[in-house]
């Protein structure tokens, strides 16, 4: 497979794998947790690399995802103690874990080859370097298939858990009264998010993965009033934005994930302005109609 095509496909698949679980993150108003998780997986990745010597090993991804889960579960637990409020627990947990990761990298523990640049924003082109060949024919980057597997897992999880995720997100207390195990659903969902963040680390790094996860569903949220529509729009924005961002970066010879993040930001601004204009138009229409009915009544 052509390198450019393979990398572009990788960008689209990574964007979809991140954005779909991102919808429930946005609905749960938990966006910054993604940032916390994406930083906290770093020590997990370094230690995992020590054992597997392979950044794309499923074992490494699952192990590092557990480190990400530490932030989600740990900060929830700290919050429940009532000693800290708001998102302070997250702010406490993830910098410590991220710093531990940075120290491990600089101490050349595990001889992992990660430079600061790649840790922060990832490098899609580097990630797409290693090609998978079947019978001597290249069928695209190995990493593409890792992300395809993650995308498939996310679709399966969201499909199977759709009703439970919806009701626990909308009204956790009511869900609890139905006998749904709200804590279990939350932890399973956080694990899937953490797994996705870890897998996407290669492509988007610790900082930009939040853009891939949050911005497409946040934009779709402005435009949709039903959950299925929200999912469809999220997928369209994620995939379209990934292609456009990839092209921008390709033309400018810039980092692909940064190109995607900037383009997502632009789409959000356009979506926001569009809904504001539409709202104002509708208000004016209402006002005009109210005046004309008042006039015809009098």
């Amino acid at each position: 497979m052509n390198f450019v095509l393979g990398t572009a496909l990788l960008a689209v698949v990574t964007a979809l794998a991140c954005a779909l679980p991102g919808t429930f993150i946005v609905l749960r108003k938990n966006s910054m947790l993604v940032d916390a998780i994406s930083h906290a997986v770093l020590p997990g990745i370094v230690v995992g690399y020590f054992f597997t010597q392979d950044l794309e090993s499923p074992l490494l991804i699952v192990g590092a995802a557990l480190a990400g889960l530490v932030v989600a579960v740990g900060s929830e637990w700290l919050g429940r103690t009532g000693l800290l409020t708001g998102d302070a627990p997250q702010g406490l947990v993830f910098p410590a874990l991220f710093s531990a990761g940075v120290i491990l990298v600089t101490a050349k523990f595990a001889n992992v080859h990660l430079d600061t640049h790649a840790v922060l924003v990832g490098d899609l082109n580097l990630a797409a370097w290693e090609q998978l060949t079947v019978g001597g024919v290249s069928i695209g980057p190995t990493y593409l298939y890792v992300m395809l597997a993650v995308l498939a897992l996310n679709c399966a999880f969201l499909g199977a858990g759709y009703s439970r995720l919806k009701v626990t997100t909308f009204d956790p207390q009511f869900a609890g009264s139905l006998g749904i195990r709200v804590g279990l659903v939350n932890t399973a969902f956080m694990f899937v998010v953490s797994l996705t963040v870890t897998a996407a680390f290669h492509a988007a790094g610790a900082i930009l993965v939040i853009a891939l996860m949050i911005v497409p569903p946040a934009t779709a949220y402005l435009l949709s009033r039903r959950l299925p529509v929200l999912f469809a729009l999220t997928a369209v924005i994620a995939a379209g934005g990934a292609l456009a961002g990839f092209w921008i970066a390709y033309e400018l010879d810039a980092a692909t994930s940064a190109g995607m993040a900037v383009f997502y930001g632009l789409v959000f601004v356009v979506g926001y302005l569009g809904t504001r204009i539409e709202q104002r138009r509708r208000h004016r229409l209402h006002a005009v109609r109210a005046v004309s009915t008042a006039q015809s009544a009098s």
Partner: protein
Amino acid sequence: MTSASARRDGEFACVARNLSVAYRAEPVLRNVDLFVPRGVVMGVVGPNGAGKSTLIKAMLGLVKPLTGRTEFFGLPLARVRQRVGYMPQSATVDWDFPTTVQDVVLMGTYGSLGWLRRPGRAERARAMAAMEQTGIADLASRQIGELSGGQRQRVFLARTLVQSPDLYFMDEPFQGVDAKSQQAIVAVLHALREQGKTVVIVHHDLVTVREYCDHVTLLNQRVVSSGPAAESFTKENIRTAYDVAADDDSFLEFVS
């Protein structure tokens, strides 16, 4: 438990014994015993911070009590979950959530469906019947954010009706409702009583307590009184629950 007391518990829709709850170091409920006879509408009444909502949540296991346990129809909750319905306060959810009235009402059927089964035609028919009963059938495809406060309460009520439980817990169903919604909710309460269902409502408008409830529990961190309204909802008990001096009775004129 002896068989005699088991039989006695069977007369009650719900029995809570010795419930104590604390938020951090702050005690909210102290050794509360509550007996809810079958087929009554019981009002749980008390001042702000009396622990009314907490009592219901603790009984339903949504808040972990320090001590005590609750049985429903003589059994632990896990075994009779389908017979117990809960209507939380509507202010606790995000009404901008991208979903429709019908979808929210359908959530009431999730408990009887497994992980994978989606609501089908039978569930949708039940949801429609519940929406008709609460007078919101014409709003079925509206986004929930477009509703008024009273309509929101009726959506929550319909969601609980869909479960067709035998015992209802409603947390402030009349909060922030207009006259029309109030009428619709009262009509549902009366219909439930006629069907022999049991209803426990958290209520804080003292004037309407006698109108809606045939049993009253006055609560202020502990149970001040509980029983048929005529015996329990007296001036003296209200004064105790609300911590008001005897000569300041002007606000109790509605109590005969």
